[in-house]
């Protein structure tokens, strides 16, 4: 466990000296800010209820591109620099390396998410009095959704020494899983249809946005995270039998 914290802390430190993290973070917040602004204008003009649903929807799409970029460095760079050999020959277990890195990415993401907390606060401040339940559950949903994306991104990062390749593979995988249910409507086989609907990353956000926390959605995201972290450990481990 101590190793895990050491690795997570070092990685988090690396985030704050890397220009890419700042760029991605700034771009993410700038885009979110822009969409929030247009949403507020629209809400005011149409005299509708202020909510965060539109903002969460936008964030879902942006995260598909942001999350894999946040994780692309984690293992790819470590392989390129040769420091992975160092970590794997230190008295540290493979899963501690993977989990430590994942934790660092998660904390960075949590920071970004907290920064967007300014939007609902603004809604309150402007006297919009939005419904607080869907906002809180929506944030829990965004956290779990992002956490799942980060685990997929970390997995992609273990596949290559090249950060760009890792990002591209990550974005591809993430988009594939986020649109998995699109072809479901045209499929007659009900089992396959159900599977496609179930594995779709975005389908499980619906309830959270409505203010519902369904255990099955939480379990779904946690299983995706566990599965991809497990796969990442297996990739690191594959040096043993390759």
């Amino acid at each position: 466990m101590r190793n895990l914290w050491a690795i997570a802390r070092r990685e988090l430190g690396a985030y704050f000296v890397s220009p890419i993290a700042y760029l991605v973070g700034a771009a993410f917040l700038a885009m979110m800010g822009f969409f929030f602004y247009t949403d507020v204008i629209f809400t005011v003009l149409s005299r509708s209820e202020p909510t965060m649903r539109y903002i969460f929807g936008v964030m879902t799409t942006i995260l598909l591109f942001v999350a894999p970029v946040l994780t692309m460095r984690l293992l790819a760079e470590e392989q390129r620099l040769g420091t992975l050999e160092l970590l794997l020959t230190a008295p540290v277990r493979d899963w501690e390396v993977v989990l430590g890195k994942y934790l660092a990415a998660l904390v960075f993401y949590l920071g970004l998410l907290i920064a967007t907390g300014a939007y609902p606060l603004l809604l309150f401040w402007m006297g919009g009095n939005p419904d607080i339940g869907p906002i809180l559950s929506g944030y829990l949903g965004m956290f779990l959704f992002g956490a799942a994306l980060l685990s997929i991104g970390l997995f992609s990062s273990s596949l290559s020494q090249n950060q760009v390749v890792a990002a591209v593979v990550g974005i591809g995988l993430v988009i594939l899983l986020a649109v998995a249910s699109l072809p479901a409507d045209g499929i007659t086989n009900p089992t396959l249809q159900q599977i496609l609907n179930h594995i779709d990353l975005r389908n499980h956000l619906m309830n959270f946005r409505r203010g519902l926390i369904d255990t099955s959605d939480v379990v779904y995201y946690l299983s995706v995270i566990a599965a991809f972290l497990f796969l990442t450990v297996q990739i690191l481990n594959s040096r043993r039998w390759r």
Partner: protein
Amino acid sequence: MIEAEGLTKIYGNQVVAIEDVTFRVERGQIVGFLGPNGAGKTTTMRILTGYMPPTRGRARIAGYDTVLQSLEARRHIGYLPETVPLYPEMSVRAYLNFMAEIRGLSNRKAAVERAMALTGLEDRADVLIGKLSKGYRQRVGLAQAILHNPDVLILDEPTIGLDPRQVREVRDLIQELGKTHTILLSTHILAEVQQICDRVLIIHRGRVRADMTLGEALRSRRPDRIFLRVEGGDRQVPEILSALPGVRRVERLEPGVYEIEVANNAREDPSPAIAETVMRQGWRLLELRPVGLTLEDLFLQVTAQD
């Protein structure tokens, strides 16, 4: 300290990287690990450091099996891989502190200070690694390897890419460390082995081809050529010395300086006979020595087979 028993590594079911590699390194020895590129040196080192398990055979470090007691074995090893593993965005001190942390050292500050003092890094402690010269980076790599004062040090080409002064500094450091540590040193520089190692281990095509002390290695071959400098005798010298048993030819390089070619079938080194003859003739012997690096000869001979 290091025990390798029948280590075999087969990549992807067909590429045999090393086969039946067996050797032991006793406490306090510095062993030069030689072999052409692709001979299996790095594979052997990666197995010893627990980076990957052997396909067959087993290795022990300080008595701990590198597969079954991997974490315990790793605690007793310091490893400097061929590509020095550094995080360029960290300062020397932060990097060493991180390494001390994942090695689970209790007194981290003292360990870091000690490692920096031993490698002469104190004045660069707060410089970012990415801004250091190659020589300093190599030292940081070494500092990382000795941080936990391990029993065994495994160094993969530690002096590669350094300038002559840095090479000398790193060699001195290794020699100093060798007094208290067991060191397996991979290198292509034979002079380095001759200078600092007690033993040589030559690996070729995945098999151990020579394992002997440096003395044995150097004595195992008689010299091919002998360099001689005498005063007196002049033109008689080649004539008289060529008659000696074991001498094939004497070439006069310049007045008083000769190179003597030893016959292939000579049973022993003709040097004593040459010295004796010089004395008897009443010439003055100024210099008499075998020419060339015999370790290089041994290396070429061993690695020329099949």
